[in-house]
C-alpha cells in the first residue's frame, strides 16, 4: 500500500455540456503527487484548475462529465466511484482548504460545534472530540484554543478564520490536502505567516499537498513540483527548479516574464501576453497556445503537440521543446 504516488492522474479529460455544445474543459491531463510531497498548480483564470480539483474530489457539477482517463488515489481509480464511497474518502483521506475563509465557515454555529460535528465518523465522547478540536487549533498556532471553541466565525479576522479552516481540513489526518488559493484573500504579511504555517504543518503531519495558486512567488517558495496549466491542458510540469530556471514551454516563460515581482529594474513598459484564452467549445487547431505564442511556427497551428520529456521528470507540451534543454 505504502508505495507509489498518493495521486496519479493519467490522461484525464473533462467536458461540460453547454448550450453552444460540449466545452472541453480538461484535455488529456496527467500529473503525479508523491506521498508527502507538495505540488503546485499554476495557471490563470480559465485554465481548468478548479475543474481539476472538482474532478479529484468527485464534486463535478451536473453538466460536467469525465470523458476519459484515470484518477488513481492510493492506487484506486476514483473515476466512476459511487457517491457513498466518494463521500467516505472526502474528509477522511482527501481534504480541502478553500479560497475564501469568510464563507467557508457556518456563521450560526460556534467553531467548537463545527469542529466536533465533522468528527462524526469517530467514536468517543463529545468531550474527547472537543479536546481534539482544541489540540488542532493549537497546532495551527491559535493562542488560547479552548476559549476560541465557543466563539462564532464573525468574531475572527480573515487570517484566523483561514487557520480554523486549515485546522478543520487536517482534523481527519488526510493523505492528501488540496489548498485552493488559500492565501489570496489575505494581506501580504498574513500570507507569509500562512506560508510558514502550511510548510510546518505539512512536515509535522506528513500529508501530501496540492497547492493551487496564481502567485508564482508562493509556489516557488513552497512546492517541490510544479504543474503549469493553460486552457485545460498541462503545458509543462517538472521540479520547481526546472520550471523557474529552465522553463521549456513558451507560455511558462511568458508567465514568468509578466510577474512584476521578477522585474527588479523599474520597467517603462511591463510585459504582457497579448490575446485571450481560447474558446474551449471551438478549440483552435494545433497547439492551444499557438494563437498567442510569440515563437509559433507554421506547424504549431496545425499539429497538436505531444507531451515531451525534455529532461528526467520535466515534461512540456510544445513542438519546439527539445530534450536536454528549453526551447526557443
Amino acid at each position, binding site marked *: 500500500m505504502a508505495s507509489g504516488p498518493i495521486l496519479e492522474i493519467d490522461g484525464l479529460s473533462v467536458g461540460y455540456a453547454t448550450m453552444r455544445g460540449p466545452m472541453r474543459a480538461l484535455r488529456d491531463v496527467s500529473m503525479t503527487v508523491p506521498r508527502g510531497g507538495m505540488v503546485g498548480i499554476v495557471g490563470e483564470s480559465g485554465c481548468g484548475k478548479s475543474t481539476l480539483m472538482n474532478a479529484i474530489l468527485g464534486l463535478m457539477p451536473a453538466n460536467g462529465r469525465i470523458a476519459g482517463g484515470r484518477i488513481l488515489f492510493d492506487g484506486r481509480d476514483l473515476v466512476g466511484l459511487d457517491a457513498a464511497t466518494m463521500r467516505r474518502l472526502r474528509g477522511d483521506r482527501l481534504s480541502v482548504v478553500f479560497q475564501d475563509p469568510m464563507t467557508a465557515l457556518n456563521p450560526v454555529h460556534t467553531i467548537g460545534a463545527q469542529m466536533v460535528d465533522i468528527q462524526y465518523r469517530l467514536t468517543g465522547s463529545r468531550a474527547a472530540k472537543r479536546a481534539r478540536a482544541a489540540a488542532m487549533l493549537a497546532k495551527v498556532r491559535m493562542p488560547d484554543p479552548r476559549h476560541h471553541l465557543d466563539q462564532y466565525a464573525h468574531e475572527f479576522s480573515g487570517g484566523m478564520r483561514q487557520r480554523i479552516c486549515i485546522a478543520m481540513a487536517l482534523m481527519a489526518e488526510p493523505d492528501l490536502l488540496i489548498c485552493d488559493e488559500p492565501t489570496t484573500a489575505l494581506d501580504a*504579511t498574513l500570507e507569509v505567516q500562512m506560508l510558514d504555517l502550511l510548510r510546518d504543518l505539512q512536515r509535522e503531519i506528513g500529508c501530501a499537498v496540492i497547492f493551487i495558486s496564481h502567485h508564482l512567488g508562493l509556489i*516557488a*517558495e513552497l512546492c517541490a513540483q510544479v504543474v503549469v496549466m493553460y486552457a485545460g491542458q498541462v503545458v509543462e510540469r517538472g521540479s520547481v527548479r526546472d520550471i523557474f530556471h529552465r522553463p521549456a514551454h513558451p507560455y511558462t516563460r511568458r508567465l514568468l516574464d509578466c510577474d*512584476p515581482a521578477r*522585474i527588479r529594474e523599474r520597467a517603462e513598459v511591463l*510585459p504582457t501576453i497579448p490575446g485571450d484564452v481560447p474558446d474551449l467549445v471551438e478549440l483552435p487547431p494545433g497547439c492551444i497556445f499557438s494563437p498567442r505564442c510569440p515563437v509559433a511556427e507554421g506547424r504549431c497551428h496545425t499539429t497538436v503537440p505531444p507531451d515531451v520529456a525534455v529532461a528526467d521528470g520535466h515534461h512540456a507540451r510544445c513542438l519546439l521543446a527539445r530534450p536536454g534543454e528549453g526551447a526557443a
Partner: protein
Amino acid sequence: MTAPLLAVDDVHVRFAVGGWLQALVQPGRPRSIEAVAGVSFAIARAEIFALIGESGSGKSTLARAVNGLVKPSAGRITFAGRDITGRSDAAMRPVRQAMAMMFQDPVGSLSPRLKVRSLLAEPFRIAGRTGRLEDEVQRLLALVGLPVEFADRYPHQLSGGQARRVGVARALALEPQLVIADEPTAGLDVSVQGEVLNLLRDLQQRLGISILIITHNLSVVRHIAERMAIMYLGRFVEVGETEAVFANPRHPYTLSLLSATPEPDPDAVADRIELAGEIPSLLRRPKGCELHTRCPFAQDRCAREVPPVMADPDGRRFTCHYPR
C-alpha cells in the same frame, strides 16, 4: 515650484461606532474610530502617487475623503487651487468632473443591464450633455485600445482586463485632471495586469493627468508610481520616492511589506522580516509607536513614546524611533 494639483493637509476621518445602548453597556468603549488620523500629502500635475496599505489601513477611506464621498472631521483638501473640504454633493459635482474615480471591482462597478455604449455615454449625460454621443464613445474606446464593436457588448461579455479598460474609459470621459484608481489590478491575471498598468501610464504621459493609485500590491507600485506612501492604522508611516523606498526602506513596516513578497525563484534566500500577529483594532490603538505590538525591532521606548516624523535629505519622511 508650481502649486500641486491636489494637496491634503492633516486630514482626519472619524466614524461613529455603536449606539447609545452600547454606550450604556460598555461605558469605557470609544464612541468613534479614526479611520484616517492626520494625513498630509500632495500630488503634482502629471504625477502618479501610490497609497499602500493592508486591509483596514484607511487607504480607501482616504481616497473617498479626497473625492468627497466621506466628509473629513478635520483637515483641509485643496484641488486645483480651490478648497474643497466638506463641500456638499451639489458643490462637489463640478469637481468630480475633474477628479474621476475608478472603483475596485471592474465588473461589479458596471451595470449589467447596460451596453458598453451606454456605460461610456453615462458620464456625459450626468454632466448635462445631451444628443448623440456616438463620437465620444468611439473616441473613448480608441483611447483605451478596445475595438469599436465592443460598444454593443454587455459587461458579462467582457474579460476582466476588458472590463477594466471600460472602467478606465469611463473615468477619462470628462477629461479629468486627476484619476483615483482603487486597486486597479485586483483580481486580474498576471498577464493582464501589465496591460492595465501600461495603459494607465500611457494615458498619464499622453494626457498629462495625475493618478492616485490605491493598492496593497507592492510589485505593481514599483513600476508605475513616482512617489509612494505606506499607511498603517490610518497614518503614514513612510512617504518618499518609489525607487528610494524600494532601495532603502527606513520604517520596519515598509521593510516587512517589501520582504513579504515571495520571489518567484526557488533559490532566493527568504530573509524575511515577519510581523507578529495581526493589525490591531482601531478601537484600541496601541500606545507609543502603533507598530510596537508587532515590530521585531521594538524596544521599551517604542511602547511609551510616539515617534516623531523624521526626514531624510532626499525628502523621505518616516515615523520611527529606530529606523533601518
